[in-house]
């Protein structure tokens, strides 16, 4: 033992020999080497020249049709019948393009986290089309993660899209995105469990529902919700407003009223009855109502958040030409109608409400009633009165987003 100690520390006690000096210098260079290695592990930013340039707005020429396309989308977001989607089947029949439709998005940020790494290197994340919410489109444009679209390949969009869905503020000129569907973040609840009608955001702070209230992990939705509850218009929120909103959310949390923070999986929780009241996306609740008629969706009196989900083509996508085919295909009025009749979200295609009414006239019984309900519902196709109650997300730059996120994570991760 002592021998070993001497061997280890001998060099420190004795005057340093030349050999010793070299040996130590060698050790030092090992550390230097590790340092260089550590530095080499730096992660490149998007502002660097090496990254894809975000301002590159003229699309590069499209390759040939490859015969396949991979789409990433959210749950309950396309028509289903007998275990398959008629839309997807007819797409393959008409175009000869095999489609791999993956339901992999549960939350914008979480999904973004899984594709961020390859996209930052300009490589394919495995998807040709992804469907993300308006603010995420803006963020991805900022990061240079999206390909400009070839509008000459999207004639159906030009011809059929509602004017209000063209040229949105998050992507002026629809250079990178075209809408998939739009909806509202309001309140969903089970009237049998709550025992009363809900009208206000304050109902989600009602101690009577302790342990059965759900909130969203989507920071913009949950903060938007709390901001509106505090009487603040989300787009005009200052940092103080957001801090107050955080307090509001913390209060809901500390008192045990909120059960948890959910992504799209809140729908299971509402369906199984673990949640009685939850922040909710409009179309989900209408779809769930088919199984549980006690479910209700409301726009609270303080207003609700309005969002648009968009189809975009990420950089490095392997089948961009096929992706355009699919985008154009779902803007066919008949196809868009089929999807809307199933998903219950507002379609960006202008002929859809009339086509649904037409289908209703041809159908009979419960089916006809249901279709009529969709076509006339102010929550699926917002009336002017409903529109006036809807608010957009605030456009956040990176610094704001970080600050908001910091405040929000303190709520969610407690």
């Amino acid at each position, binding site marked *: 033992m002592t021998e070993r100690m001497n061997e280890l520390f001998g060099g420190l006690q004795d005057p340093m020999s030349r050999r010793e000096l070299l040996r130590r210098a060698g050790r030092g260079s090992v550390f230097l080497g590790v340092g260089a290695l*550590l530095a080499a592990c730096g992660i490149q930013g998007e502002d660097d020249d090496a990254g894809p340039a975000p301002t590159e707005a003229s699309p590069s020429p499209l390759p040939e049709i490859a015969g396949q396309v991979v789409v990433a989308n959210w749950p309950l977001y396309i028509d289903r019948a007998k275990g398959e989607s008629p839309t997807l089947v007819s797409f393959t029949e008409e175009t000869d393009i095999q489609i791999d439709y993956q339901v992999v998005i549960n939350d914008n940020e979480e999904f973004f986290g899984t594709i961020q790494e390859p996209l930052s290197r300009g490589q394919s994340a495995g998807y040709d089309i992804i469907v993300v919410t308006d603010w995420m489109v803006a963020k991805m444009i900022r990061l240079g993660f999206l390909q400009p679209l070839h509008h000459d390949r999207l004639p159906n969009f030009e011809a059929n899209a509602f004017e209000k869905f063209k040229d949105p503020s998050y992507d002026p000129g629809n250079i990178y995105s075209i809408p998939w569907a739009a909806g509202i973040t309001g309140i969903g609840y089970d009237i049998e469990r709550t025992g009363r009608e809900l009208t206000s955001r304050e109902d989600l702070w009602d101690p009577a529902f302790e342990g059965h209230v759900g909130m969203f992990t989507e920071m913009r939705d949950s903060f938007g919700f709390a901001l509106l509850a505090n009487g603040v218009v989300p787009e005009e929120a200052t940092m103080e407003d957001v801090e107050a909103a955080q307090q509001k959310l913390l209060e809901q949390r500390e008192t045990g009223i909120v059960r948890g923070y959910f992504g799209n999986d809140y729908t299971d929780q509402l369906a199984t009855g673990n949640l009685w009241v939850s922040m909710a996306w409009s179309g989900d609740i209408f779809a769930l109502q088919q199984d549980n008629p006690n479910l209700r969706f409301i726009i609270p009196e303080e207003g609700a958040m309005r969002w648009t989900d968009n189809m975009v083509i990420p950089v490095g996508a392997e089948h961009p030409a096929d992706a355009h085919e699919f985008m154009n295909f779902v803007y066919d009025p008949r196809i868009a109608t089929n999807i809307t009749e199933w998903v219950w979200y507002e379609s960006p295609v202008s002929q859809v409400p009339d086509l649904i009414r037409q289908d209703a006239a041809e159908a009979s019984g419960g089916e006809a009633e249901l279709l009529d309900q969709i076509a006339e519902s102010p929550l699926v196709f917002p009336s002017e009165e409903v529109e006036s109650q809807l608010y957009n997300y605030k456009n956040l730059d990176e610094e704001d987003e970080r600050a908001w996120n910091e405040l929000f994570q303190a709520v969610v*991760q407690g």
Partner: protein
Amino acid sequence: MTTTVETAAPRSARWRRAGPPYSLLLPGGLWLLVFFVVPMVSMLSVSLQEGSLEQGYELTWRFQTYLDVLGKFDRQFIRSIFYGLMVTGALLLICYPLAYTIAFRGGRWKNALLFLLIMPFFVSFIIRTLEWKFILADDGFIFGPLKNLGWLGQDFRVLATPFAVIGGLVYNFLPFMALPLYVALERMDRSLLDAAGDLYSSRTSAFLRVTLPLSLPGVFAGSLLTFIPAVGDFINAEVLGGINTTMIGNVIQNEFLVNNDYPEAAAISFLLLAGILIGVAVYAKLLGTEELTG
């Protein structure tokens, strides 16, 4: 000149004897180098970087990040370690009698019993955990009827409580405790117990002074195999937990995937690693590793 010749001969002979066994380490060693050392170095580097997704991350040797995350996530660190200890303790209490019974009383049913023990684990981890969520639903097929009968209060729930998370972890890690305990008990020399009896030992003191000490290697291995993954787990808290059950694994996942704050995520991972290493070292010291591994 002569000395070099003299020392060279035995050295090469030694190499001839020892070379082949060492070269057997090569595949595993390379594997560890590529998939363990390289990621560790890269993660260490990331933890000392600063920046953002847009600006990129640059190595600035910012050790402050470590203090930051300790201050920010102290509750989740403590909670994870507490959960880990609870899980390991509960598993010892559950698995020791189980392994003991199978090893000493299993007889010809031993293999069948062991098979039954691991059978549920042929099903994917995630599926089993999700299944608990359905079974334990507030108005699910267990609690629903009990509530209707009035045996449970309407407010009773298991999901979204710490109990659910700890319970899920206990369930998911059961074989990792049971199997090492079984192996330790099974290979025990039974004649030692007869000897203890011959020396007028009661059955209790024979257990305490013979069986228990001899099974300590199993206790040690089982504790490590359950405590370490339990502390870092995030699935159970994610699926079965609610508010105030967030574990450090969830924080890491969230920092990495949602906030894209890679330095913080990496720093937390390293702190967790250091914490576990220290904990295990103390534990090994207390139990006396030399006897356990030697």
